[in-house]
């Protein structure tokens, strides 16, 4: 028998190779079945066991940057699952820890402090609703990057909008305005906060600044929503104000918003930023966003209502019988 090389040997290679390929092809389906069972449960991310950032940093053995990227990515994904959250309350309890780990592993990733603090501070369901943690995170960043004015800007912003602490906000902005690279308007911002803290104008200016300056699409989106919401709030407060004035004058509430135009209070009936007219309920005097609205309304703190109203009264004279 003249053997071909492969036959005279221990070698029956091809059947085994075929078996290997066959088994390998069965691997992806098996993995998918396992994955299904994993997903079926709560979407807690697969966090590595050790929770202490310093421990992780020590274990990173020089690969902190890579690990930081992975944690940052997980944080984003984690945060980004709010779509599912619409159906189920989201727990952000781990977000602060993740951001802490990420910023320990790579303290120079500015986005972690900037975008991370926003996510932390925003109330449920947009964010974790932990503004103090947000400030702590920013302080960590500031300790590392004392000359970075943007971090001070963000810190002041958190105090201003989420914590209503105008004194600390102004202080943060003041510190920031003293830094070499700070933009000129930061001093003005500080002044406004310290003197006329509860002004919605200041808030709008801050949101506008974020919308124009941020490089992150999600931050800009968030800012856009806030701006739209302040516009809605101002419009609603104005409408309420004029409805009271109308009642004063005519002895009864207007039957529809057009009456306000006819009475000379408004030039035209306002629509919301998405172009949908506002709802008005004459019996109760309620004005608000229509259900069909496309505006993503984020609550505007009631504190601004008072100073806004004062401005209206200055302009148009007071209305009696406050609602």
């Amino acid at each position, binding site marked *: 028998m003249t053997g071909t090389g*492969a036959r005279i*040997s*221990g*070698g*029956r*290679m*091809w059947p*085994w*190779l075929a*078996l*290997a*390929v*066959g*088994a*390998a092809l*069965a*691997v*992806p389906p*098996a*993995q998918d*079945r*396992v994955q*299904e*069972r*994993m*997903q079926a*449960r*709560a*979407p*807690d991310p*697969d966090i590595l*066991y050790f929770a202490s950032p310093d421990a992780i940093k020590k274990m990173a053995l020089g690969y902190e940057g890579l690990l930081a990227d*992975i944690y940052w*990515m*997980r944080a984003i*994904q984690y945060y980004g699952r709010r779509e599912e959250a619409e159906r189920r309350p989201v727990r952000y309890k781990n977000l602060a820890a993740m951001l802490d780990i990420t910023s320990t592993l790579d303290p120079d990733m500015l986005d972690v402090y900037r975008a991370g603090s926003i996510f932390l501070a925003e109330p449920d369901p947009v964010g974790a609703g932990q503004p103090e943690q947000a400030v702590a995170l920013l302080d960590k960043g500031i300790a590392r990057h004392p000359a970075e004015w943007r971090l001070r800007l963000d810190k002041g912003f958190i105090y201003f909008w989420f914590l209503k602490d105008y004194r600390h906000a102004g202080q943060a902005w003041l510190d920031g305005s003293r830094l070499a690279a700070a933009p000129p308007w930061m001093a003005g911002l500080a002044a406004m906060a310290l003197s006329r803290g509860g002004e919605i104008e200041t808030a709008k200016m801050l949101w506008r600044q974020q919308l124009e300056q941020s490089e992150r699409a999600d931050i800009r989106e968030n800012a856009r929503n806030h701006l739209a919401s302040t516009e809605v709030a101002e419009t609603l407060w104005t409408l309420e104000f004029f409805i009271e004035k109308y009642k004063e004058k005519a002895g009864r509430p207007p039957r529809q918003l057009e009456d306000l135009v006819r009475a000379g209070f408004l030039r035209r009936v306002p629509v919301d930023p998405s172009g949908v007219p506002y709802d008005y309920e004459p019996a109760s005097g309620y004005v608000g966003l229509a259900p069909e609205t496309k505006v993503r309304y984020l609550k505007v703190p009631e504190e601004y209502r008072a100073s806004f109203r004062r401005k209206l009264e200055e302009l148009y004279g007071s209305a009696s019988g406050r609602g």
Partner: protein
Amino acid sequence: MNIAVVARNTFRENIRDRVLYNLILFALVMTVSSIALGQLTLGYERKVIVDLGLSAISIFGTLIAIFIGIGLVHKELERRTVYALLSKPVRRHEFILGKYLGLLATLSVNVAVMTVGLWLSMLYQGGIEPAGYARILPAVYLIFLSLALTTALALVFSTFSTPALSALFTLFLWIAGHFNYDLLEFAATSRTAAMRRFFQALYYLVPNFSNFTSIDSRNVIQSAAYAQPVDWTAVGWTTVYGLVYSGALLALAVAVFSRRDFK
């Protein structure tokens, strides 16, 4: 039949290997120290003991699987003992499978010993209900599955690579295999279709060790420590995955080994 003979001899060889005893010693030390550490946690003693004990079984089992596994075939080739052996009526697949099962036998003895050690630690701690002891077992089972996979991996490398490289590759794949879900995320956030497919392929290719560390999407060690209920379907599918992947690796090892000339 010869598979069993080779396996038995491999088991005997492992038992006489000093490396094994050093590792077991360290592992037992770790288990015992968990008792001491537990005292520091004021109320979390049980969790710490179980955490450390299971982690010790996992880590040291993996080290044994890798360090002995990489030599399974290579040592025979290097020391030329393979010549005398393969001229006997032993087929090449019997050789490979026998070696594999022999090491698995060693690992199972090791895991069993350490599990008993863990139970003893728990007993010493006291105040744990019987179900708590039993709850350790699914975690131990999954750990053993992961060891079987690691061994198969080391064995494949052993058929064609030096011990140093084999250890490197196996360890690297073991570490990478804990980040499979991140590969999925990479795929999801990829900008191009080509990148997405690339990451998806990697996701399936890299042995997924995180399968064995998560049940109920919780770390399996943690959930044992908290005595949380087990998702048996997940365990079942994980078993299938482990068997299929290990089977593919073993078949590959046999194929490579069958082809080989022993100069």
